[in-house]
């Protein structure tokens, strides 16, 4: 009997859905509404201006630049971070050499130490990480250039964040460094739940590390990887990228707009330029990009789930 099933579900869902509607859905609707006004964010009076903000946005070079950088972040960062994290966690959990008397499947020597090391950046707040790297990138006396100098490469002293060709990559490197540890731990947990007999069977069949990874680990970990992918993409489009760009880069967003991202542009437009309505317009564009990103990842990643 399915009698009363929906009432039962509705009873449980009312409160969370209500909260969700008030604190998430309603602000979305409001933001979309404000994007059709000329609200400054500093006074309660504003009027409707139709599509003016959208017209302005489509002719705004800086918007396109920030969109381009945000898309680059959303594509590259998950790819690099998750590949690295998969590699590290595979080596930590599965990739070790067979040792006498040990379990058939184990990580490389010292793997528990590596696990802590990788997770360490996760303990630091992103603002602190950004500040630390800002010092490291200091071309005058920073750690990186001092190191280059120390190993006899004194002639190579890049400007790092001061160079428009390098700045964006510097920022991305920091994001990878600070997030990879989280995914190592996430994937390690996933790998720990894969039964050891599958690996043993593969070993008996003569599978090497690469084959084991691509034929056993990755397929069984697919759900985790997919969620990780969406999560990382959203970090790259949202708060984390804002924090590092705002704290580390020149201007911020420079040099010459080479590191500006959509969230930073929303922030600057709303809170520096006093054009909250235009900022919400860019926010709507960001919403569209994020939705598209999630939809594409979900669609591409759809696979038959394996039970084990």
């Amino acid at each position, binding site marked *: 009997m399915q009698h009363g099933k929906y009432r039962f579900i509705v009873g449980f869902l009312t409160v969370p859905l209500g909260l969700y509607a008030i604190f998430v859905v309603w602000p979305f609707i*409001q933001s979309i509404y404000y994007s059709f006004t000329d609200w*400054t964010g500093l006074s309660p009076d504003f009027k409707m201006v139709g599509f003016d903000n959208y017209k302005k946005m489509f002719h705004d070079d800086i918007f396109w630049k920030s969109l381009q950088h945000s898309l680059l972040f959303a594509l590259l960062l998950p790819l690099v971070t998750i590949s690295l994290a998969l590699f590290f966690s595979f080596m930590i959990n599965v990739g070790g050499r067979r040792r006498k008397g040990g379990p058939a499947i184990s990580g490389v020597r010292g793997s528990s130490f590596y696990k802590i090391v990788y997770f360490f950046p996760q303990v630091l707040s992103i603002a602190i990480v950004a500040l630390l790297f800002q010092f490291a990138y200091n*071309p005058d006396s920073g750690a990186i250039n001092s190191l280059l100098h120390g190993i006899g490469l004194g002639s190579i002293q890049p400007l790092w964040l001061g160079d428009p060709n390098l700045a964006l990559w510097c920022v991305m490197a920091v994001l990878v460094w600070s997030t990879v540890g989280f995914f190592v731990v996430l994937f390690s947990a996933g790998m720990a739940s894969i039964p050891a007999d599958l690996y043993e069977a593969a070993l008996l069949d003569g599978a090497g590390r690469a084959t084991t990874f691509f034929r056993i680990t990755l397929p069984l970990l697919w759900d985790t990887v997919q969620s990780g992918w969406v999560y990382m993409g959203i970090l790259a489009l949202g708060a984390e990228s804002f924090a590092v760009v705002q704290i580390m880069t*020149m201007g911020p967003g*420079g040099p010459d707009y080479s590191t500006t991202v959509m969230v930073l542009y929303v922030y600057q437009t709303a809170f520096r330029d006093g054009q909250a309505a235009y900022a919400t317009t860019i926010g709507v564009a960001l919403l569209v990009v994020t939705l598209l990103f*999630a939809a594409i990842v979900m669609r591409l990643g759809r696979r038959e789930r394996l039970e084990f």
Partner: protein
Amino acid sequence: MGSTSGEHNKNTTFGGVGRRDLIKRSAALGLLSVPTMSFLSACASSGGDDGGDKAKAGKKTAKNPLGVNDTAQMEFVLFDGGFGKEYAQDAVKLYEKDFPKAKVKFSSTQKIGTVLQPRFNQGNPPDLIDNSGAEQMDMGVLVGKKQLADLTPLLDAPSYDDPNKKVRDTLRPGIVEMGQFDGDPVWIMYYAYTVYGVFYSQKALDSLDEKYPETWDEMLKVCAKAKKKGMAGWTYAGKYPYYIPFSLYPMIGKVGGRDVLDAIDNLEPNAWKHPAVKACFEAYYELYQKGYILKGTPGLDHIQSQTAWAKGKALFIPNGNWVENESANVIPADFNLAVSAPSGLDSSDKLPFGTIWASGGEPFVVPAKAKNPEGGMEQLRIMLSEASSKNFTAKVKSLTALNGGTTGVDLTPGLKSGVAALEKAGSNVLNPRLQDWYVKLQKEQIGVSAIGEMMAGRLTPAEAIKKIQGFADAAAADTSIKHYKHK
């Protein structure tokens, strides 16, 4: 009674949507909400009354020329930045002494925008605000949206110390004009007074056996001499290149006259194409070409560049007189900090050497919808008294808008040199307005993506000027920006 758990595990269709799918989808939706713009709506406008419960004005007397209601509450929100909050708290005590029956609600924050933006939107702002810091609310928008009160009554009131002198007549040059946007009303009272220019160590200059160069040829000579000793001529806040104008703009004014800067501020067509602009840009570019700029400077932020400069790696730095406080912990005791007006080109310059940029800082405003605007203005009148001004100078090593008010105060080397520079300048004080009229244009467009690029050697002066003129023309044509003109 078919809904046992066992059945559900096998039966994946649950009301049309697989249960797993449902969970997955809702998780995805939840994640989506993370980066998007809901934070903006947090400051959603909710109309608000027009301050119908304003305090009734009190009686105007000689001791109370603004007619403050002596029982009404006065609320004062201060930006708690480099100057701290002690000086304001001291002034609040004086207010409470003058109006013992009034309650003062004093608070300080570093997040002026976060704290006050919602209150402006609701129509119940405090009575006096120090609208400063990284979250400063855009003055142009506040004025344009009629959110600020005209401070003319304060300026025309007798000063706190001398009843025969109006407040207006006790202020330093430029303070009143800076508070105006267009027309006569004065919206902002800048309390601190900043001297901009070229900062250096007198000791380092002495060790080169040189004095501060007055022309550009001399400047290049000093830099060459410094280079021989392994010291760079200049450094600057590479990541915030809008520090360079602190010495570059007054140089343009000195070479081409005040009108050139006014035309630039007015966003007049081809204002940047003036020969004086080109000559000064080329002069600065020469510093880069001859290798007189500290290596790595374009990647340094303001603190890092000031530290390198304080360590003696570079001789000159364009800055404001807050540098003495900000870098106090790295400036050696025998540094002998000094500031000079910028060097000019040669003897054909329109204005004499000594022409300097000085202007107000720490903008105080009284909101139009404040409940007790007279109270806010009275608090400012108290702060502009000689005693409060001296207290400020002694505590935070900065000058105030009050002309004079330094006698008897033990001045630091940098401040002493700043006072001397102001005396030498006399009436040749310039006050370029781009940085408060068009923040984005000045900082992000002119500063970062033109001057910064030029000083890093990635643009020639001609390219930089062309780019800036383009930005300025775009700003002039943008109807969503409020435009201002020098009178």
